[in-house]
Protein backbone atom coordinates (compact mmCIF):
# COMPACT_ATOMS: atom_id res chain seq x y z
CA UNK A 1 0.00 0.00 0.00
CA UNK A 2 1.44 3.38 -0.88
CA UNK A 3 1.83 5.83 1.97
CA UNK A 4 -1.04 7.96 0.66
CA UNK A 5 -3.61 5.19 0.64
CA UNK A 6 -3.57 4.28 4.30
CA UNK A 7 -4.48 7.70 5.69
CA UNK A 8 -7.20 8.05 3.04
CA UNK A 9 -8.59 4.67 3.99
CA UNK A 10 -8.61 5.59 7.65
CA UNK A 11 -10.37 8.89 6.94
CA UNK A 12 -12.92 7.25 4.72
CA UNK A 13 -15.51 6.28 7.36
CA UNK A 14 -15.67 9.81 8.75
CA UNK A 15 -15.88 11.39 5.33
CA UNK A 16 -18.50 8.88 4.26
CA UNK A 17 -20.59 9.50 7.34
CA UNK A 18 -20.42 13.25 6.78
CA UNK A 19 -21.45 12.86 3.16
CA UNK A 20 -24.36 10.64 4.09
CA UNK A 21 -25.33 13.05 6.83
CA UNK A 22 -25.47 15.99 4.45
CA UNK A 23 -26.30 14.48 1.11
CA UNK A 24 -29.26 12.33 2.03
CA UNK A 25 -31.42 15.15 3.46
CA UNK A 26 -30.33 17.51 0.69
CA UNK A 27 -30.93 14.85 -1.95
CA UNK A 28 -34.37 14.03 -0.59
CA UNK A 29 -35.30 17.70 -0.44
CA UNK A 30 -34.22 18.11 -4.05
CA UNK A 31 -36.14 15.00 -5.06
CA UNK A 32 -39.34 16.09 -3.30
CA UNK A 33 -39.07 19.54 -4.78
CA UNK A 34 -39.39 18.10 -8.29
CA UNK A 35 -42.40 15.84 -7.72
CA UNK A 36 -45.97 16.32 -6.68
CA UNK A 37 -46.12 15.14 -3.07
CA UNK A 38 -48.87 16.08 -0.62
CA UNK A 39 -49.86 14.58 2.71
CA UNK A 40 -53.62 14.51 2.09
CA UNK A 41 -55.58 14.54 -1.11
CA UNK A 42 -58.98 13.02 -1.58
CA UNK A 43 -59.02 13.90 -5.28
CA UNK A 44 -55.54 12.66 -6.20
CA UNK A 45 -54.62 9.89 -3.73
CA UNK A 46 -51.63 8.90 -5.94
CA UNK A 47 -49.84 12.16 -4.90
CA UNK A 48 -49.75 11.18 -1.25
CA UNK A 49 -46.71 8.91 -1.68
CA UNK A 50 -43.48 10.12 -3.21
CA UNK A 51 -42.87 8.60 -6.60
CA UNK A 52 -41.04 9.54 -9.79
CA UNK A 53 -44.24 9.04 -11.74
CA UNK A 54 -45.53 12.23 -10.09
CA UNK A 55 -42.71 14.24 -11.68
CA UNK A 56 -43.54 17.93 -11.79
CA UNK A 57 -40.29 19.46 -13.05
CA UNK A 58 -39.96 23.06 -11.93
CA UNK A 59 -43.67 23.23 -11.22
CA UNK A 60 -43.22 23.41 -7.45
CA UNK A 61 -40.71 26.23 -7.85
CA UNK A 62 -43.09 28.14 -10.07
CA UNK A 63 -45.88 27.61 -7.58
CA UNK A 64 -43.71 28.92 -4.73
CA UNK A 65 -42.48 31.91 -6.73
CA UNK A 66 -46.04 32.85 -7.60
CA UNK A 67 -47.40 32.46 -4.07
CA UNK A 68 -48.18 35.83 -2.55
CA UNK A 69 -46.11 35.25 0.60
CA UNK A 70 -42.85 34.24 -1.02
CA UNK A 71 -41.34 37.64 -1.80
CA UNK A 72 -42.53 38.97 1.53
CA UNK A 73 -40.88 36.04 3.30
CA UNK A 74 -37.54 36.63 1.57
CA UNK A 75 -37.68 40.34 2.27
CA UNK A 76 -38.62 39.72 5.84
CA UNK A 77 -35.90 37.08 6.32
CA UNK A 78 -33.27 39.48 5.05
CA UNK A 79 -34.63 42.40 7.03
CA UNK A 80 -34.68 40.45 10.29
CA UNK A 81 -31.28 38.80 9.80
CA UNK A 82 -29.47 41.95 8.68
CA UNK A 83 -30.95 44.08 11.45
CA UNK A 84 -29.99 41.55 14.10
CA UNK A 85 -26.46 41.24 12.70
CA UNK A 86 -26.03 44.99 12.54
CA UNK A 87 -27.25 45.52 16.09
CA UNK A 88 -25.46 42.59 17.73
CA UNK A 89 -22.12 43.42 16.11
CA UNK A 90 -22.26 47.09 17.09
CA UNK A 91 -23.56 46.46 20.59
CA UNK A 92 -21.16 43.52 20.98
CA UNK A 93 -18.10 45.57 20.05
CA UNK A 94 -19.12 48.47 22.27
CA UNK A 95 -19.86 46.33 25.30
CA UNK A 96 -16.76 44.17 24.82
CA UNK A 97 -14.51 47.22 24.63
CA UNK A 98 -16.24 48.72 27.64
CA UNK A 99 -15.92 45.73 29.95
CA UNK A 100 -12.44 44.82 28.73
CA UNK A 101 -11.05 47.53 31.01
CA UNK A 102 -10.45 46.42 34.58
CA UNK A 103 -13.14 47.59 37.04
CA UNK A 104 -14.50 46.34 40.37
CA UNK A 105 -17.14 43.64 40.01
CA UNK A 106 -15.91 42.73 36.55
CA UNK A 107 -16.47 39.01 37.04
CA UNK A 108 -20.12 39.39 38.10
CA UNK A 109 -20.88 41.82 35.29
CA UNK A 110 -19.42 39.43 32.74
CA UNK A 111 -21.49 36.49 33.96
CA UNK A 112 -24.66 38.63 33.99
CA UNK A 113 -23.92 39.82 30.48
CA UNK A 114 -23.57 36.31 29.16
CA UNK A 115 -26.72 34.99 30.83
CA UNK A 116 -29.34 35.93 28.17
CA UNK A 117 -27.62 33.47 25.91
CA UNK A 118 -28.68 30.60 28.15
CA UNK A 119 -32.41 31.38 27.90
CA UNK A 120 -34.34 29.12 25.52
CA UNK A 121 -35.52 30.98 22.39
CA UNK A 122 -39.19 30.14 22.96
CA UNK A 123 -39.00 31.25 26.59
CA UNK A 124 -37.21 34.39 25.51
CA UNK A 125 -39.96 35.19 23.03
CA UNK A 126 -42.74 34.56 25.54
CA UNK A 127 -41.03 36.73 28.15
CA UNK A 128 -40.45 39.60 25.77
CA UNK A 129 -43.81 39.67 24.07
CA UNK A 130 -45.86 39.20 27.28
CA UNK A 131 -43.85 40.77 30.04
CA UNK A 132 -41.92 43.52 28.29
CA UNK A 133 -43.59 44.53 25.06
CA UNK A 134 -47.24 43.95 25.92
CA UNK A 135 -49.07 47.28 25.48
CA UNK A 136 -51.16 46.82 28.63
CA UNK A 137 -49.61 44.35 31.03
CA UNK A 138 -46.00 44.47 29.86
CA UNK A 139 -43.25 46.80 30.97
CA UNK A 140 -44.01 48.93 27.95
CA UNK A 141 -47.67 49.38 28.91
CA UNK A 142 -46.79 50.20 32.49
CA UNK A 143 -44.13 52.67 31.43
CA UNK A 144 -46.37 54.44 28.94
CA UNK A 145 -49.21 54.58 31.48
CA UNK A 146 -46.79 55.98 34.04
CA UNK A 147 -45.57 58.70 31.69
CA UNK A 148 -49.12 59.67 30.80
CA UNK A 149 -50.06 59.88 34.46
CA UNK A 150 -47.00 62.04 35.12
CA UNK A 151 -47.96 64.34 32.25
CA UNK A 152 -51.48 64.52 33.63
CA UNK A 153 -50.02 65.67 36.91
CA UNK A 154 -48.03 68.38 35.14
CA UNK A 155 -51.14 69.63 33.38
CA UNK A 156 -52.65 70.42 36.77
CA UNK A 157 -49.91 72.98 37.50
CA UNK A 158 -51.46 76.47 37.26
CA UNK A 159 -49.40 78.35 34.63
CA UNK A 160 -47.07 75.73 33.12
CA UNK A 161 -49.95 73.30 32.83
CA UNK A 162 -51.16 75.15 29.74
CA UNK A 163 -47.88 74.32 28.00
CA UNK A 164 -48.06 70.62 28.93
CA UNK A 165 -51.64 70.28 27.80
CA UNK A 166 -50.32 70.91 24.27
CA UNK A 167 -48.50 67.57 24.57
CA UNK A 168 -50.35 64.53 23.28
CA UNK A 169 -51.06 61.40 25.29
CA UNK A 170 -48.55 58.66 24.55
CA UNK A 171 -49.92 55.52 22.94
CA UNK A 172 -48.39 52.13 23.68
CA UNK A 173 -47.30 50.21 20.57
CA UNK A 174 -48.70 46.76 19.90
CA UNK A 175 -45.89 44.51 18.79
CA UNK A 176 -48.18 41.78 17.57
CA UNK A 177 -49.39 43.88 14.65
CA UNK A 178 -48.42 43.26 11.05
CA UNK A 179 -46.15 46.28 10.85
CA UNK A 180 -44.35 45.84 14.15
CA UNK A 181 -44.01 42.13 14.82
CA UNK A 182 -40.71 41.91 12.92
CA UNK A 183 -39.34 44.68 15.16
CA UNK A 184 -40.28 42.68 18.23
CA UNK A 185 -38.48 39.63 16.86
CA UNK A 186 -35.40 41.72 16.11
CA UNK A 187 -35.39 43.16 19.64
CA UNK A 188 -35.67 39.86 21.43
CA UNK A 189 -33.13 38.03 19.29
CA UNK A 190 -30.68 40.94 19.55
CA UNK A 191 -31.04 40.84 23.32
CA UNK A 192 -30.36 37.14 23.31
CA UNK A 193 -27.45 37.08 20.87
CA UNK A 194 -25.52 40.20 21.83
CA UNK A 195 -23.87 38.24 24.67
CA UNK A 196 -22.60 35.74 22.13
CA UNK A 197 -20.94 38.54 20.20
CA UNK A 198 -19.60 40.10 23.40
CA UNK A 199 -18.12 36.79 24.48
CA UNK A 200 -16.28 36.26 21.20
CA UNK A 201 -15.07 39.85 20.92
CA UNK A 202 -13.90 39.90 24.53
CA UNK A 203 -11.74 36.82 24.04
CA UNK A 204 -10.23 38.44 21.01
CA UNK A 205 -9.61 41.74 22.77
CA UNK A 206 -7.69 39.96 25.48
CA UNK A 207 -5.22 38.71 22.91
CA UNK A 208 -4.61 42.20 21.55
CA UNK A 209 -0.96 43.21 21.60
CA UNK A 210 -0.39 45.91 24.22
CA UNK A 211 2.90 47.08 22.74
CA UNK A 212 1.11 47.93 19.51
CA UNK A 213 -1.17 50.17 21.52
CA UNK A 214 1.78 51.81 23.23
CA UNK A 215 3.46 52.34 19.89
CA UNK A 216 0.25 53.94 18.65
CA UNK A 217 0.08 56.18 21.71
CA UNK A 218 3.62 57.36 20.98
CA UNK A 219 2.69 57.83 17.34
CA UNK A 220 0.06 60.29 18.48
CA UNK A 221 -3.03 58.15 17.92
CA UNK A 222 -6.11 59.28 19.85
CA UNK A 223 -8.29 56.76 21.63
CA UNK A 224 -10.61 56.77 18.65
CA UNK A 225 -7.73 56.23 16.19
CA UNK A 226 -6.44 53.35 18.28
CA UNK A 227 -9.89 51.82 18.16
CA UNK A 228 -10.33 52.47 14.46
CA UNK A 229 -6.88 51.42 13.24
CA UNK A 230 -5.85 48.73 15.72
CA UNK A 231 -8.78 47.29 17.66
CA UNK A 232 -11.31 47.16 14.85
CA UNK A 233 -9.01 45.42 12.34
CA UNK A 234 -7.97 43.09 15.14
CA UNK A 235 -11.66 42.25 15.61
CA UNK A 236 -12.15 41.71 11.87
CA UNK A 237 -11.97 37.95 11.98
CA UNK A 238 -14.12 37.51 15.11
CA UNK A 239 -16.70 39.83 13.55
CA UNK A 240 -16.71 37.70 10.43
CA UNK A 241 -17.24 34.62 12.60
CA UNK A 242 -20.07 36.20 14.54
CA UNK A 243 -21.73 37.40 11.34
CA UNK A 244 -21.38 34.01 9.69
CA UNK A 245 -22.70 31.96 12.58
CA UNK A 246 -25.56 34.32 13.31
CA UNK A 247 -26.58 34.61 9.67
CA UNK A 248 -26.97 30.85 9.52
CA UNK A 249 -28.84 30.69 12.83
CA UNK A 250 -31.19 33.58 12.22
CA UNK A 251 -32.18 32.63 8.71
CA UNK A 252 -33.94 29.72 10.39
CA UNK A 253 -35.70 31.69 13.15
CA UNK A 254 -39.02 30.04 13.88
CA UNK A 255 -40.07 29.97 17.53
CA UNK A 256 -40.00 33.75 17.94
CA UNK A 257 -42.08 34.35 14.83
CA UNK A 258 -44.60 31.72 15.82
CA UNK A 259 -44.97 33.14 19.32
CA UNK A 260 -45.07 36.83 18.46
CA UNK A 261 -47.59 36.85 15.62
CA UNK A 262 -48.11 33.33 14.24
CA UNK A 263 -46.51 34.59 11.07
CA UNK A 264 -49.07 37.32 10.68
CA UNK A 265 -47.42 39.76 8.26
CA UNK A 266 -44.10 38.52 9.51
CA UNK A 267 -43.33 35.27 7.74
CA UNK A 268 -39.78 34.31 6.95
CA UNK A 269 -38.65 31.44 4.76
CA UNK A 270 -38.68 28.75 7.48
CA UNK A 271 -42.13 29.84 8.54
CA UNK A 272 -43.33 29.64 4.96
CA UNK A 273 -41.83 26.16 4.67
CA UNK A 274 -43.70 25.23 7.81
CA UNK A 275 -46.98 26.46 6.34
CA UNK A 276 -46.48 24.60 3.08
CA UNK A 277 -45.47 21.49 4.97
CA UNK A 278 -48.90 21.29 6.54
CA UNK A 279 -49.85 19.55 3.33
CA UNK A 280 -47.75 20.37 0.29
CA UNK A 281 -44.36 18.70 0.83
CA UNK A 282 -43.29 19.40 -2.74
CA UNK A 283 -43.72 23.17 -2.35
CA UNK A 284 -42.12 23.09 1.10
CA UNK A 285 -39.08 21.33 -0.37
CA UNK A 286 -38.80 23.83 -3.20
CA UNK A 287 -38.92 26.65 -0.64
CA UNK A 288 -36.23 24.82 1.31
CA UNK A 289 -33.99 24.83 -1.75
CA UNK A 290 -34.59 28.57 -2.12
CA UNK A 291 -33.61 28.93 1.53
CA UNK A 292 -30.34 27.05 0.96
CA UNK A 293 -29.52 29.31 -1.98
CA UNK A 294 -30.39 32.41 0.04
CA UNK A 295 -28.27 31.28 2.99
CA UNK A 296 -25.22 30.79 0.80
CA UNK A 297 -25.78 34.07 -0.93
CA UNK A 298 -26.11 35.96 2.33
CA UNK A 299 -23.09 34.28 3.90
CA UNK A 300 -20.79 35.00 0.97
CA UNK A 301 -22.02 38.56 0.60
CA UNK A 302 -21.66 39.36 4.30
CA UNK A 303 -18.20 37.82 4.57
CA UNK A 304 -16.99 39.82 1.60
CA UNK A 305 -18.37 43.00 3.09
CA UNK A 306 -16.87 42.46 6.53
CA UNK A 307 -13.53 41.46 5.05
CA UNK A 308 -13.37 44.49 2.77
CA UNK A 309 -14.30 47.15 5.25
CA UNK A 310 -12.26 46.03 8.21
CA UNK A 311 -9.05 44.63 6.80
CA UNK A 312 -8.38 47.86 4.85
Amino acid sequence: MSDRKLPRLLQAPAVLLLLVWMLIPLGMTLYFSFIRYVLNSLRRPEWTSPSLSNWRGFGNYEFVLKSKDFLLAIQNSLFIVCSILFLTVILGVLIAVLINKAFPGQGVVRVLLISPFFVMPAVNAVLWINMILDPVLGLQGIAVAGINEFLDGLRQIPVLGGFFSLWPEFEPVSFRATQTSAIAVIMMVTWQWTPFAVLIFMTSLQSEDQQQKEAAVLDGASTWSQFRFLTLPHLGRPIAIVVMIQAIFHLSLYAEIEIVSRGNGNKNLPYLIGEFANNNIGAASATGIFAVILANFVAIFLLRMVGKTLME
Partner: protein
Amino acid sequence: MGRIVLDQVSKKFGDVEVIPPLDLTIEDGEFAVFVGPSGCGKSTLLRMIAGLEDLTSGNIEIDSEVVTEVPPSKRGLAMVFQSYALYPHMTVRKNIGFPLRMEKMAPDEIDKRVEAAAQSLNLIDYLDRKPGQLSGGQRQRVAIGRAIVRDPSAFLFDEPLSNLDAALRVGMRLEISEMHERMQTTMIYVTHDQVEAMTMANKIVVLQAGVIEQVGSPLDLYHKPQNVFVAGFIGSPKMNIFSGSEAEKHGAHTIGIRPEHTDVSMTDGTWEGRVGVAEHLGSDTFIHVHDTGLTDMITVRITGDISVKHGDKIYLTPQADQIHKFDAKGQRIA
Protein backbone atom coordinates in the same frame (compact mmCIF):
# COMPACT_ATOMS: atom_id res chain seq x y z
CA MET B 1 17.82 68.92 19.82
CA GLY B 2 17.36 66.39 22.54
CA ARG B 3 18.92 66.93 25.92
CA ILE B 4 17.20 64.75 28.46
CA VAL B 5 17.51 65.34 32.19
CA LEU B 6 16.12 63.05 34.87
CA ASP B 7 15.78 64.76 38.21
CA GLN B 8 15.22 62.58 41.29
CA VAL B 9 13.07 60.27 39.20
CA SER B 10 11.67 57.22 41.00
CA LYS B 11 9.14 54.49 40.35
CA LYS B 12 7.10 52.24 42.59
CA PHE B 13 4.83 49.42 41.47
CA GLY B 14 2.50 49.15 44.45
CA ASP B 15 4.82 48.91 47.42
CA VAL B 16 7.81 47.72 45.45
CA GLU B 17 10.31 50.45 44.68
CA VAL B 18 11.72 49.37 41.34
CA ILE B 19 13.71 52.56 40.80
CA PRO B 20 14.88 54.59 43.80
CA PRO B 21 15.29 58.32 43.08
CA LEU B 22 18.01 58.84 40.48
CA ASP B 23 19.58 61.68 38.52
CA LEU B 24 20.84 61.36 35.00
CA THR B 25 21.66 63.71 32.15
CA ILE B 26 21.84 62.68 28.53
CA GLU B 27 23.36 65.34 26.33
CA ASP B 28 22.04 66.32 22.92
CA GLY B 29 23.32 63.97 20.21
CA GLU B 30 24.60 61.40 22.64
CA PHE B 31 24.22 57.65 22.19
CA ALA B 32 23.41 56.50 25.70
CA VAL B 33 23.08 52.83 26.52
CA PHE B 34 21.29 51.52 29.61
CA VAL B 35 22.80 48.20 30.49
CA GLY B 36 22.28 45.87 33.42
CA PRO B 37 21.06 42.42 34.37
CA SER B 38 17.51 41.30 33.66
CA GLY B 39 14.88 42.92 35.87
CA CYS B 40 17.06 45.84 36.95
CA GLY B 41 14.59 48.42 35.65
CA LYS B 42 16.05 49.43 32.29
CA SER B 43 12.80 49.11 30.40
CA THR B 44 10.88 50.83 33.17
CA LEU B 45 13.25 53.78 33.07
CA LEU B 46 12.97 54.03 29.30
CA ARG B 47 9.18 53.81 29.42
CA MET B 48 9.14 56.57 32.00
CA ILE B 49 11.13 58.78 29.67
CA ALA B 50 8.75 57.91 26.84
CA GLY B 51 5.76 58.73 29.03
CA LEU B 52 4.25 55.25 28.91
CA GLU B 53 4.80 54.88 32.64
CA ASP B 54 3.97 57.53 35.25
CA LEU B 55 6.65 58.78 37.60
CA THR B 56 6.18 58.13 41.31
CA SER B 57 8.26 61.22 42.02
CA GLY B 58 10.75 63.51 40.32
CA ASN B 59 10.78 65.31 37.00
CA ILE B 60 11.89 64.72 33.45
CA GLU B 61 13.11 67.56 31.28
CA ILE B 62 13.58 67.48 27.54
CA ASP B 63 15.45 70.50 26.18
CA SER B 64 14.99 72.37 29.47
CA GLU B 65 11.24 71.88 29.40
CA VAL B 66 9.58 69.83 32.10
CA VAL B 67 7.60 67.09 30.35
CA THR B 68 6.52 65.05 33.35
CA GLU B 69 2.86 65.84 32.66
CA VAL B 70 3.15 65.99 28.88
CA PRO B 71 1.46 63.08 27.06
CA PRO B 72 3.79 60.62 25.27
CA SER B 73 3.02 61.76 21.75
CA LYS B 74 3.82 65.39 22.56
CA ARG B 75 7.30 64.68 23.91
CA GLY B 76 8.84 64.43 20.47
CA LEU B 77 10.34 61.03 21.17
CA ALA B 78 10.16 57.91 19.03
CA MET B 79 10.43 54.41 20.44
CA VAL B 80 11.40 51.09 18.89
CA PHE B 81 10.10 48.08 20.79
CA GLN B 82 11.65 44.68 21.28
CA SER B 83 8.64 42.98 19.68
CA TYR B 84 8.67 45.64 16.89
CA ALA B 85 4.99 46.42 17.65
CA LEU B 86 4.17 46.86 13.97
CA TYR B 87 0.51 47.24 13.05
CA PRO B 88 -0.27 43.83 11.56
CA HIS B 89 -3.17 44.90 9.33
CA MET B 90 -1.32 47.71 7.61
CA THR B 91 1.22 47.54 4.83
CA VAL B 92 4.78 48.65 5.47
CA ARG B 93 3.94 51.94 3.76
CA LYS B 94 0.99 52.56 6.09
CA ASN B 95 2.98 51.46 9.12
CA ILE B 96 5.78 53.91 8.47
CA GLY B 97 3.35 56.66 7.55
CA PHE B 98 1.08 56.12 10.56
CA PRO B 99 2.59 58.76 12.87
CA LEU B 100 2.41 61.32 10.07
CA ARG B 101 -1.17 60.38 9.31
CA MET B 102 -1.97 60.95 12.97
CA GLU B 103 -0.43 64.40 12.63
CA LYS B 104 -2.89 64.99 9.75
CA MET B 105 -0.07 65.64 7.30
CA ALA B 106 -1.01 65.91 3.61
CA PRO B 107 -1.01 62.49 1.88
CA ASP B 108 1.58 63.36 -0.77
CA GLU B 109 3.92 64.76 1.87
CA ILE B 110 3.49 61.53 3.83
CA ASP B 111 4.29 59.50 0.72
CA LYS B 112 7.43 61.51 0.12
CA ARG B 113 8.71 61.08 3.66
CA VAL B 114 7.84 57.38 3.77
CA GLU B 115 9.68 56.76 0.52
CA ALA B 116 12.71 58.64 1.78
CA ALA B 117 12.79 56.65 5.00
CA ALA B 118 12.26 53.38 3.12
CA GLN B 119 15.08 54.30 0.77
CA SER B 120 17.51 54.83 3.59
CA LEU B 121 16.50 51.54 5.21
CA ASN B 122 16.46 49.41 2.05
CA LEU B 123 12.75 48.79 2.35
CA ILE B 124 11.63 50.16 -1.02
CA ASP B 125 10.79 46.71 -2.40
CA TYR B 126 8.68 45.79 0.60
CA LEU B 127 6.49 48.87 0.91
CA ASP B 128 3.31 47.07 -0.09
CA ARG B 129 3.80 44.00 2.06
CA LYS B 130 2.29 43.38 5.45
CA PRO B 131 4.53 42.84 8.49
CA GLY B 132 3.64 39.14 8.56
CA GLN B 133 5.38 38.71 5.21
CA LEU B 134 8.72 40.15 6.34
CA SER B 135 11.78 38.64 8.01
CA GLY B 136 12.76 39.65 11.52
CA GLY B 137 15.44 42.02 10.30
CA GLN B 138 13.07 43.69 7.85
CA ARG B 139 10.43 44.11 10.53
CA GLN B 140 13.00 45.75 12.74
CA ARG B 141 13.85 48.12 9.94
CA VAL B 142 10.19 49.02 9.47
CA ALA B 143 9.96 49.78 13.19
CA ILE B 144 12.99 52.03 12.86
CA GLY B 145 11.48 53.64 9.77
CA ARG B 146 8.31 54.44 11.70
CA ALA B 147 10.51 56.15 14.29
CA ILE B 148 12.60 58.06 11.73
CA VAL B 149 9.74 59.68 9.79
CA ARG B 150 8.62 61.55 12.86
CA ASP B 151 11.94 63.34 12.95
CA PRO B 152 12.05 62.99 16.75
CA SER B 153 14.36 64.85 19.09
CA ALA B 154 15.44 61.51 20.55
CA PHE B 155 15.12 57.81 19.74
CA LEU B 156 14.39 55.25 22.41
CA PHE B 157 15.28 51.62 21.72
CA ASP B 158 14.23 48.79 24.04
CA GLU B 159 16.39 45.76 23.25
CA PRO B 160 15.61 46.11 19.56
CA LEU B 161 17.97 43.37 18.43
CA SER B 162 17.30 40.62 20.93
CA ASN B 163 14.91 38.76 18.61
CA LEU B 164 17.44 38.57 15.78
CA ASP B 165 20.04 35.89 15.11
CA ALA B 166 23.67 36.58 15.87
CA ALA B 167 24.81 37.54 12.36
CA LEU B 168 21.88 39.86 11.76
CA ARG B 169 22.37 41.43 15.15
CA VAL B 170 25.92 42.46 14.26
CA GLY B 171 24.66 43.93 10.99
CA MET B 172 21.81 45.87 12.57
CA ARG B 173 24.13 47.08 15.31
CA LEU B 174 26.32 48.67 12.69
CA GLU B 175 23.33 50.13 10.88
CA ILE B 176 22.01 51.78 14.00
CA SER B 177 25.45 53.15 14.87
CA GLU B 178 25.75 54.49 11.35
CA MET B 179 22.30 56.04 11.58
CA HIS B 180 23.42 57.81 14.73
CA GLU B 181 26.58 59.11 13.08
CA ARG B 182 24.54 60.41 10.16
CA MET B 183 21.69 62.02 12.09
CA GLN B 184 23.49 63.03 15.27
CA THR B 185 20.21 62.66 17.16
CA THR B 186 20.07 61.66 20.80
CA MET B 187 19.54 57.94 21.22
CA ILE B 188 18.82 55.93 24.32
CA TYR B 189 19.33 52.26 23.88
CA VAL B 190 18.45 49.54 26.38
CA THR B 191 20.23 46.22 26.28
CA HIS B 192 21.54 43.54 28.58
CA ASP B 193 24.22 42.63 26.08
CA GLN B 194 27.42 44.35 27.14
CA VAL B 195 29.00 43.88 23.71
CA GLU B 196 26.22 46.02 22.22
CA ALA B 197 26.77 48.53 24.99
CA MET B 198 30.52 48.73 24.47
CA THR B 199 30.39 48.94 20.68
CA MET B 200 27.57 51.43 20.25
CA ALA B 201 27.59 53.84 23.18
CA ASN B 202 29.13 57.23 23.80
CA LYS B 203 27.83 56.92 27.30
CA ILE B 204 27.02 53.76 29.18
CA VAL B 205 24.70 53.79 32.18
CA VAL B 206 25.16 50.64 34.25
CA LEU B 207 22.10 49.80 36.33
CA GLN B 208 21.59 47.30 39.09
CA ALA B 209 18.28 46.95 40.95
CA GLY B 210 17.23 50.38 39.73
CA VAL B 211 20.37 52.08 40.98
CA ILE B 212 22.90 53.67 38.66
CA GLU B 213 26.22 51.99 39.41
CA GLN B 214 28.29 54.05 37.02
CA VAL B 215 27.96 56.40 34.08
CA GLY B 216 30.80 56.83 31.62
CA SER B 217 32.27 56.17 28.22
CA PRO B 218 32.85 52.51 27.30
CA LEU B 219 36.61 52.78 27.87
CA ASP B 220 36.08 54.59 31.17
CA LEU B 221 34.05 51.68 32.40
CA TYR B 222 36.58 49.22 31.10
CA HIS B 223 39.63 50.88 32.57
CA LYS B 224 38.18 52.45 35.69
CA PRO B 225 35.16 50.50 36.95
CA GLN B 226 33.85 52.36 40.00
CA ASN B 227 32.88 49.24 41.88
CA VAL B 228 32.99 45.48 41.87
CA PHE B 229 29.62 45.17 40.09
CA VAL B 230 30.67 47.25 37.11
CA ALA B 231 34.07 45.53 37.05
CA GLY B 232 32.37 42.15 36.79
CA PHE B 233 29.66 43.29 34.37
CA ILE B 234 31.74 45.06 31.73
CA GLY B 235 34.29 43.04 29.77
CA SER B 236 34.18 39.61 28.22
CA PRO B 237 35.28 37.16 29.46
CA LYS B 238 34.54 38.49 32.93
CA MET B 239 37.19 40.06 35.13
CA ASN B 240 38.63 37.74 37.77
CA ILE B 241 37.68 39.16 41.15
CA PHE B 242 38.75 37.83 44.51
CA SER B 243 39.39 38.82 48.12
CA GLY B 244 41.71 37.40 50.74
CA SER B 245 45.41 37.57 51.56
CA GLU B 246 46.47 38.15 47.97
CA ALA B 247 44.21 41.22 47.85
CA GLU B 248 45.56 42.49 51.14
CA LYS B 249 49.09 42.32 49.71
CA HIS B 250 47.91 45.05 47.32
CA GLY B 251 46.38 47.03 50.15
CA ALA B 252 42.79 46.28 49.12
CA HIS B 253 39.83 44.23 50.29
CA THR B 254 39.13 42.91 46.84
CA ILE B 255 41.17 42.98 43.69
CA GLY B 256 40.31 42.30 40.07
CA ILE B 257 42.38 41.45 37.06
CA ARG B 258 41.07 41.10 33.53
CA PRO B 259 41.75 37.86 31.64
CA GLU B 260 43.67 39.79 28.97
CA HIS B 261 45.95 41.44 31.57
CA THR B 262 47.46 38.26 32.91
CA ASP B 263 50.70 36.86 31.49
CA VAL B 264 51.02 33.12 31.19
CA SER B 265 54.06 30.91 31.49
CA MET B 266 54.62 27.17 31.78
CA THR B 267 57.71 27.61 33.95
CA ASP B 268 57.37 30.41 36.48
CA GLY B 269 55.11 33.25 37.64
CA THR B 270 53.34 34.81 40.62
CA TRP B 271 50.45 32.37 40.86
CA GLU B 272 50.54 28.64 40.21
CA GLY B 273 47.54 26.66 38.97
CA ARG B 274 46.26 23.79 36.92
CA VAL B 275 44.72 24.09 33.44
CA GLY B 276 41.03 23.28 33.29
CA VAL B 277 39.17 23.84 30.04
CA ALA B 278 40.95 25.71 27.25
CA GLU B 279 38.71 27.40 24.68
CA HIS B 280 40.46 27.85 21.35
CA LEU B 281 38.90 30.58 19.25
CA GLY B 282 41.80 30.78 16.79
CA SER B 283 42.54 34.45 17.32
CA ASP B 284 42.45 34.03 21.10
CA THR B 285 42.59 31.27 23.63
CA PHE B 286 40.70 31.39 26.92
CA ILE B 287 42.22 29.18 29.60
CA HIS B 288 40.32 28.41 32.77
CA VAL B 289 42.83 27.87 35.55
CA HIS B 290 41.96 26.00 38.74
CA ASP B 291 43.69 25.29 42.06
CA THR B 292 45.34 28.70 42.36
CA GLY B 293 44.21 29.04 45.96
CA LEU B 294 42.80 32.50 45.15
CA THR B 295 39.34 31.70 43.89
CA ASP B 296 37.56 28.78 42.20
CA MET B 297 38.71 29.60 38.75
CA ILE B 298 40.74 32.27 37.02
CA THR B 299 40.23 32.94 33.34
CA VAL B 300 43.10 34.17 31.23
CA ARG B 301 43.11 35.28 27.65
CA ILE B 302 46.05 34.73 25.35
CA THR B 303 46.34 36.21 21.90
CA GLY B 304 46.88 33.54 19.27
CA ASP B 305 47.05 29.84 19.97
CA ILE B 306 48.86 27.95 22.68
CA SER B 307 48.99 24.24 23.23
CA VAL B 308 48.07 23.31 26.77
CA LYS B 309 46.48 20.14 28.02
CA HIS B 310 43.89 19.62 30.70
CA GLY B 311 45.71 19.21 34.03
CA ASP B 312 48.98 20.90 32.96
CA LYS B 313 50.70 23.04 35.52
CA ILE B 314 50.57 26.74 34.58
CA TYR B 315 51.92 30.00 36.03
CA LEU B 316 50.11 33.35 35.92
CA THR B 317 51.53 36.83 36.40
CA PRO B 318 49.13 39.81 36.63
CA GLN B 319 50.27 43.00 34.94
CA ALA B 320 50.90 45.18 37.99
CA ASP B 321 49.44 48.39 36.53
CA GLN B 322 46.24 46.63 35.46
CA ILE B 323 45.16 45.42 38.88
CA HIS B 324 41.86 46.98 40.03
CA LYS B 325 41.59 47.52 43.79
CA PHE B 326 38.36 47.79 45.77
CA ASP B 327 37.62 48.49 49.42
CA ALA B 328 35.41 46.48 51.74
CA LYS B 329 32.28 48.21 50.37
CA GLY B 330 33.23 47.22 46.85
CA GLN B 331 34.16 50.79 45.86
CA ARG B 332 37.22 51.49 43.76
CA ILE B 333 40.40 52.62 45.52
CA ALA B 334 41.97 55.27 43.30
